[in-house]
């Protein structure tokens, strides 16, 4: 079931078109990563989806409710975790949560629940200004979860946090998705996107230039997994044997060994190793190279993600 559907989103700031004709959907339980370099239009897109920013064109539906005509009802279904730490420093963690819980009409038991989820129960009575950076980030996320939204929008939620807090946030997001929440996630950390996202959309200069699963994007670019083998023995015979294995697309000499181009390295590797060992060739080392989103991103935008 589709939770978020946005189509033809467009927003101009003076003479600059920040977002142009961006469309995508997110299903229940799906985590969608929106990737793009700085200034690509990610935050503008998110701002339009959350109703913070008006659209020049296009429409956003949350659970079928149009943001343009029923903004209040649509916003009740959206949890928003902005990139900045949107907290009141002179209120305690619990007071921050209670304030937003009241705005969303969420019960007090939800405050205790989300404090527990993000691991801040013991520090709930401390002023937010006294929290560490990671704790502030977790509180920032907790506010977005208070009203059990159908769609959770996280804009760079792990920027500048310690590894422990980052892992906790990622685990929280995974659990929420497993419970059926639709998640829109932007990040600068490619490994996060690969760990979390079912699908990603690559946005550059305001345009959504590619969309799909990691594998779909990799294949669309003609990139494949590679297995490099350092071998002792008859390389000619090994080439013939390995070339006959299903999903092996090519075998070529590579130093004192061979390099295989395959469809899925993890799936192929057992068959490759079994074939070699039964043909008297000794494997000295194995190296698997999988094209990742960084590769895809660089290929599509000509830029590294952190640029």
């Amino acid at each position: 079931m589709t939770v978020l559907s946005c189509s033809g989103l467009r927003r101009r700031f003076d003479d600059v078109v920040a977002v142009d004709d961006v469309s995508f959907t997110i299903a229940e339980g799906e985590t969608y990563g929106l990737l793009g370099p700085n200034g690509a239009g990610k935050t503008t897109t998110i701002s339009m989806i959350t109703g913070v920013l008006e659209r020049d064109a296009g429409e956003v539906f949350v659970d079928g409710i149009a943001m343009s005509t029923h903004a209040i009802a649509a916003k009740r279904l959206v949890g928003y975790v902005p990139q900045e730490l949107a907290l009141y420093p002179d209120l305690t963690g619990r007071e921050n949560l209670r304030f937003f819980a009241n705005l969303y009409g969420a019960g007090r038991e939800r405050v205790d629940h989300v404090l527990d989820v993000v691991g801040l129960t013991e520090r709930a009575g401390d002023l937010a200004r006294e929290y560490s950076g990671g704790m502030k980030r977790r509180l920032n996320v907790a506010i977005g979860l208070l009203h059990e939204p159908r769609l959770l929008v996280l804009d760079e939620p792990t920027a500048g946090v310690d590894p422990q807090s980052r892992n906790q946030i990622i685990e929280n997001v995974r659990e929420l998705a497993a419970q059926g929440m639709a998640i829109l996630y932007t990040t600068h950390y490619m490994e996060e996107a690969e760990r979390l996202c079912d699908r990603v959309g690559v946005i550059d200069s305001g345009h959504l230039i590619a969309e799909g699963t990691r594998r779909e994007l990799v294949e669309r670019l003609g990139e494949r997994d590679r297995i490099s083998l350092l071998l002792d023995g008859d390389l000619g015979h090994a080439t013939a044997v390995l070339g006959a294995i299903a999903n092996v697309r090519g075998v070529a000499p590579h130093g004192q060994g061979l390099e295989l181009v395959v469809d899925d390295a993890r799936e192929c590797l057992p068959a490759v190793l079994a074939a070699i060992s039964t043909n008297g060739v000794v494997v000295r080392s194995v190296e698997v190279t999988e094209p990742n989103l960084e590769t895809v991103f660089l290929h599509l935008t000509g830029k590294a993600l952190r640029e």
Partner: protein
Amino acid sequence: MRHALLIAARDLRERARDRTAYVLAIVLPLGLAGVFTLILGNISGDSQLFTYAVADADRGVVARAFTDDVLRKAAASGAIALRTVSSEQEARTLVDDGTATAAFLLPAGLTEDVQAGRAARIEVVGNVDAPTGTDVARSLAQAYTDRLGAVRTAVAATVHSGVSTPPAELAAAAAAVLPQAVVDEDTTGRRQLDAKTQYAAGMAVFFLFFAVQPGVTGLLDERRNGTLARLLAAPVRRSSILTGKLLTSVVVGVVSMTVLVVASSLLMGARWGHPAGVAALVLSGVLAATGAMAVVAAIAKTSEQAGGWQAIVAIVLGALGGAFFPVTQAGGVLEKLSLLAPHRWFLRGLADLAGGGVAAVLPSVAAMTAFAAVTGAIALLLFRKVVRP
């Protein structure tokens, strides 16, 4: 409205933890009012502030009229204390040793000079350490002699014009004009605030403009802190966000003014007047202050910039409106300009309340409410750009 109340409640909770807010809204105005009263109260209160000696060497009708009908009436009203002495030397001694603020020396032949058509001369000897009291004495003497001159001219003109008014009637008419002029002309005397109330009210309304700042600049703080985006993403109408911020200012203003009214009454003996009238003035004053500060906040790009401009506006309006000194006495353009300042209307309302019933504050309340309506409307229009999607 529920969301506006929630936003205001959150703001107030945060403000309650800010110690500078208490200093600005309560401690400073109360402290300064106390200091001003101590320093300046003795020259502008309503008790016997100046003691004057009078030495009458003339003993004629003109000297008696000045002593009995001008000075004694002023003494009876409580404005001065009067001490009659037998000689000029005694009067000078009292001034020199500080017993008297100043002395009036009525020379022998004063009445004779007036009746002969010569200029009347009343000598004033002042204490060098009491310039204000000496100035007041000079003013009393000058007013009397001026009026003598005016009457003399009028009588002469009447005689020369050939009008057949009997001299006795002319003399009676002239006598009737003479003495009441200086004291009884001041019909606003009963509508003035005593020094303690004047300074307490002046400082209260001056710092009110600072006390209401955080509420209206809160929107800029929210934008800087990133929480505005969160509020805009919440199922809350944008008008509720604006209303909540304005409400914060109004509540802070009313609370700080209430504390100041009560504290200055108990600690300084200020007499604010009927509670209903004071409440109407406080509420309309708070609304006016909120409106003025909201306009500045709406124009500013950051809360820091807003704070700077708000301080300037608060000081200019405060000075113009008579929070520090009575600008209205300056007259002319300055007095007309002072009508633009809510401070002027607030203080005038209190003075009217002191001299009349609760209804006497209505013109001031109306003026401040109109000021609040105009500035509030402008601020809301300008603030829309801050929360515009």
